[in-house]
Structures are given as C-alpha cells and as structure tokens.
C-alpha cells in the first residue's frame, strides 16, 4: 500500500528507507491506523527521521492525498533565491529596474507576486546560458555600500503563499523553519561550533587514571598497576576574520561574532578582525575598519598552528581580487593584489577555512567565489558546512 507515496517522498529527496516503509506497513496491518490523520502522524514519525524534512513531507502528503499543488523541487530553491535577491534590491530600486530591463515606473506597477514570477522566469532563462560571474546571481561588480534611497511604493517581500487549500494540517507548513532551506538560526550555528572544541591530548602523561588503575590492578590479581593519562588541554588559538562590509554579510556578522565570543573560554586565544570584501594589507580590529589597523605582516609572525577562520561571501568584482590596486577603498592601495595576500595567509596558517553564507549551490555563479575557493577550503555557513569546516580545522595535517 502507498507505494507511489513512498516513491514520491524519495523523489523529493527525503531519505526514506525501505525498512522504515515496511515498519509503516506493519503499523497498518496491526490496525493502528484508522484515519487519514492517523496515517499522517504514523507515516511521519516512522518514515521521517529529521525535523528538517517535515516541511517537505507535509507538502508531499498534501499533494498525494488531496491533490494539492506541488511546488517543483526547483521551485523550492528559486523561491528562496528570489526572495533574498528582492530584499537586496529593495534597497536599490533603480538597479532592480535596470537589471530586469524595465523602467522604474513599470516596476512600481507590478505586484510583488508578479514581480517574483517575472523575476523567476528571467532567472530560469539565464540559468542555461551563463555560468560565469554575471550580474543576476553573483553580485558581479556591484558593491552596494551606500544607501540608494527610497522603496517603491507598497512593495513587500516575504509571505508569498503558493498553496491555498488541501489537507489542513499538512498545509499549515508548521515545520518550515526547520527545513533545509530554512534560515540558519543561532542555535544551529551554536551547535556546530561546539565542535570547535579541540580536545586532542597534548600535555605529558602526568594524570593518574584512577578507574583504569583499579581495573588493571584487579586484572593483575592485586598487583598494583598505575595507569597514567595525558592531561587534556585545549590549546586552540583562533583568528576570526569577518567581512562586515556589505549587505550580504549583515545578518551574519553579529551572529558569528557572538557565537565565537561565547566560546571564547574554550580557546586559548581568540582574535577577531574585520575586512571589506577581501583582504589587502590590513585587517581591522574595530568593526568600523578605521581606528585599529593590523598589518598582515604581523599576522605571519603568529603561531602557524593558529586556526584562521574567514567569514565572508567572497563575492566581489574580479578586479578587487586580482588587480594590484584593486581595493575599492582608496587608502588601501598596497601594490599587491589581494589574491596573493590570501594565498600567503593560507600558506602561513595550514589550518584555515572560509565560511560562506551564500548557499553552496550558488557558488559556481560567482567567479570570485571559485577563485577564493581554490585558495581556502570553502564551506557553507550552515550546520553541515560548519561541521565539515570544523572537522577540517581539527584534522592533523
């Protein structure tokens, strides 16, 4: 029974195992399920093993049993992208109008829904044609630092509802916040960063392991055998470099900083620096990037075992990265391209990682992300990504 349902779940990339499906059959056979509501509850608790898939399950369920409109898998992603981009462009209506190839007046006539539809059509359109840095998906050379001014009247993003009717419970989409495409919450990052604890034994073997000593003594038939352990020491030094320059980083700066500050106690040393877009000759210890410069040369004198963690979207105009005087800040003209500085840093600190809040599937669209990704191991700023990053930072070589 319900075999097509099973395959629909699998098609939506929900990991459902055949064993779990058989368990569900067992529940059905034993008469535990007497209504559709029961089936919903039973199927979800037996088949779905993570709240992150609850939202998707709800949608498939509503589709299968009530014929609700099923958003294409592609649409899952497009929705999120479209919304994020629109929010960005709300700050700069003129740019948006230019990019969509219409006048500002025309733009204002569109409702948000129409705009998103139009926008997605264009997005799909260009998917096939380009793969390099392009002004649609990357930020291709636009570094919106100022504020453009006004919002087009009545424009509102978010809360665009796609589906209206169907099985009520499933359609409420109560688990949207937990789904994979949901926003990264503080708790989620905190969970992943807990893995930063570096409890690799380092000190001399100078602590008596009482339990083990007693056990070994017993095994020896009462002959005293004392077992020593290394004392566990957490000797991790961390340099955190955060790109706090642009709109794209805004939601994450405080988040990342707070989390590292909370875990400060477990590091031997934590230094936080700031930069804009990419690193030139200087990092700044103050968020305004003005008062406390720190020369990159000084960094190279630090312990090479220090973990360097860069947090940034790595999205900028290619010349900012490659050109010798690429900085968009006039006082940062150094004569060396940022690319070389980054290479130098990754050679100095063999344990380094770049955390990128841009979803990994969008990386190929921005040229500078690919370039920086070759210098630093790059990880997505998500639970999975952070965990991989931490594993990478903890690895011995």
């Amino acid at each position: 029974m319900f075999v097509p349902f099973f395959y629909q779940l699998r098609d939506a990339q929900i990991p459902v195992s055949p064993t779990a499906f058989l368990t569900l059959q067992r529940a059905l056979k034993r008469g535990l399920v007497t209504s559709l509501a029961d089936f919903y509850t039973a199927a979800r608790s037996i088949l779905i093993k993570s709240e992150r898939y609850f939202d998707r399950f709800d949608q498939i369920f509503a589709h299968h049993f009530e014929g609700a409109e099923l958003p294409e898998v592609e649409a899952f992603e497009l929705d999120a992208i479209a919304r994020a981009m629109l929010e960005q462009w709300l700050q700069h209506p003129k740019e948006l109008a230019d990019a969509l190839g219409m006048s500002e007046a025309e733009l204002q006539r569109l409702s948000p829904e129409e705009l998103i539809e139009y926008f997605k059509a264009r997005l799909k359109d260009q998917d096939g044609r380009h793969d390099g840095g392009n002004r649609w998906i990357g930020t291709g050379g636009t570094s919106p630092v100022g504020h453009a001014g006004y919002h087009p009247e009545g424009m509102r993003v978010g809360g665009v509802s796609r589906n209206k009717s169907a099985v009520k419970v499933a359609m409420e989409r109560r688990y949207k916040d937990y789904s994979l495409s949901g926003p990264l919450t503080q708790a989620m990052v905190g969970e992943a960063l807990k893995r930063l604890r570096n409890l690799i034994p380092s000190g001399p073997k100078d602590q008596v392991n009482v339990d083990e000593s007693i056990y070994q003594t017993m095994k020896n038939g009462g002959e005293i055998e004392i077992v020593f352990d290394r004392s566990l020491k957490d000797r991790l030094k961390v340099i955190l470099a955060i790109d706090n320059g642009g709109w794209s980083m805004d939601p994450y700066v405080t988040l990342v900083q707070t989390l590292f500050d909370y875990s400060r106690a477990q590091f031997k040393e934590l230094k936080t620096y700031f930069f804009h877009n990419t690193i030139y000759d200087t990092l700044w210890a103050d968020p305004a990037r003005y008062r406390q410069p720190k020369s990159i040369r000084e960094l190279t004198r630090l312990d090479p075992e220090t973990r360097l963690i860069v947090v940034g979207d790595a999205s900028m105009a290619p010349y900012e990265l490659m050109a010798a005087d690429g900085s968009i800040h006039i006082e940062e003209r150094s004569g060396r391209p940022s690319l070389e500085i980054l290479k130098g840093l990754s050679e100095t600190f063999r344990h380094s990682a770049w955390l990128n809040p841009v979803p990994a599937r969008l990386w190929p669209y921005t040229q500078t992300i690919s370039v920086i990704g070759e210098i630093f191991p790059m990880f997505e700023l998500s639970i999975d990504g952070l965990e991989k990053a931490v594993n990478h930072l903890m690895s011995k070589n």
Partner: protein
Amino acid sequence: MVNTEMDADCATFNGASQYVLDDELAKIVNISMALEMPLLLKGEPGTGKTMLAYAIAESLQMPLIVLNVKSSMKLVEALYQYDTLTRLNDSRFGDSQRDVSDIEAYIRMGKIGQAFTADRRTVLLIDEIDKADTDFQDDMLDVLDQMTFDIIEIDKTVKARQRPVVIITSNAKKDLSDPFLGRCNFHHIAFPDPAMMRRIIRVHFKDLDETLMENAITAFYQLRDIDAVEKKPATRELINWIRALTVDPDFKPKRLVKGELPYLGVLFKKSGDLERANQTVRRRRLF
C-alpha cells in the same frame, strides 16, 4: 484515543496530571509502543521531552528507569558493572556474606540492565543521547533491538523479560547517525505556542490570576525574541518566574505591561544574557 485491536496488556497513553499532551504526540507514543520501537524525541530544551517519559510512566503506572547519558559514558556502564573493588576487599578481609569465588555476586545491573531484569514492564528513558559518541549510540541501539546483552566476565546472556517502553531524548540540532535513526520512530516537539503555553501554565497553577498569566506569557514571548541570547528561557523558567511573581506580595500584574519586569534572573541564567535582557527591557521602557 484510537485503540482498536491492540493487545489487552498494551495500555494506551492519554496524558498525565502534570503534563499537557497534544493529540499528535499521544498518537505517536501509542504507535511506538505498539510497534515496540524506541521513540526518539528532539526539540529545543524546555519543550518537555524528559517530562513526557515521566508522564507516560505515571499514566501507564509503570516504573520509570532513567539513564542520564554522560559524554564519557561507556555502553557497558549502562548495562552492568563488575564491582572489582568490593571483590578485592572481600578477598583480602573476608568479612562479607558474599562468595568471593562467585563473580556473579559482584555484578550489578546498570540502568538498561535494570529495565531488562525488572519483573514488570518499565519505561526506560535515555536522556540526552546526543552527549555520548556515535559508537555508544549505535551499540546501544543494537542492545535495544536484540533486547539481550552479554556479561563477559561470567559468560552469561541477559535477556529482557519484558520489552521496556523506550523513550530517547536529544537536544542536538545535528542529526544522529543513520543506523540509529533507522531503528527509532521520530518526533520533533516544537516550542509551545502561546495557546499551548496557557494550557501548560493552567496545569501548573490551578487558580492563577488571569491578567497575571496573560501579561506574563506576553512578556515571556517578547523576552524570547531578544537576539543573541545564548540560552533562551524555556517553559521551566516561565513556570518558576510566575511562581516568583505570585509569592511577591508587592507585585501588581499591571506592571508587566508597562515593561517593569522583576526577577529577570529567574528567566536568564547566564550573566551575559541577563545583562542583555536588562538592557533591552530598559531601552523599551524609555520609548
């Protein structure tokens, strides 16, 4: 409650005196019991994961056995312990009733062992499984699957007399290993919404002033929204806070609306968080 053709001895669960149960969760508990599968509960702290096990035990009138998982724990500790020290002591001084040559006299059952050897069906709560490493988790599920384990020292197999009702809780946002998940039923308890919270508070405070409850709950959800707080206040903190407010003779519920929030220390347990909360509250009052 749906209880059609289950075995006569397989009681169903309807909630207990101190626990507010939603329908969905009750169904899941019953299905897990009928399928004899462990139920894995996830959710942020304070959503009542642990309390659920207590409530099940109370309502089914089964004894509850709690295994609090610790990070350094080895599986064998949860199963049984071979008390070598007592045996050594007995063999040197020989002043006990035990037979030193009989190792079995020195085997003590751990929590899982107790659940297996109990005369009655028990509720076994394995609390905060995410603290232990993956090997522990997988090995434990093997034991719970087979319902047997071996005591190596005396080469004896312990078999469960009655399959316990197994409830496992996890705080982790990270997923547990696939083989582990494969053998559990899963439910995620969301943080209660204000309506649910009202019912929960009602259960704990039978005759609480209506305005006080409303204002306290409103303030509580606002406080939970403060950014960059390490440990958000949960249900337990709210209950304690209301308790503190009710015992203070000088306190007037109206003041909560004005933004005067006393005893924030009951809600925020970390000094950084408390400071942040105080700042936010003060700033709001100025406006």
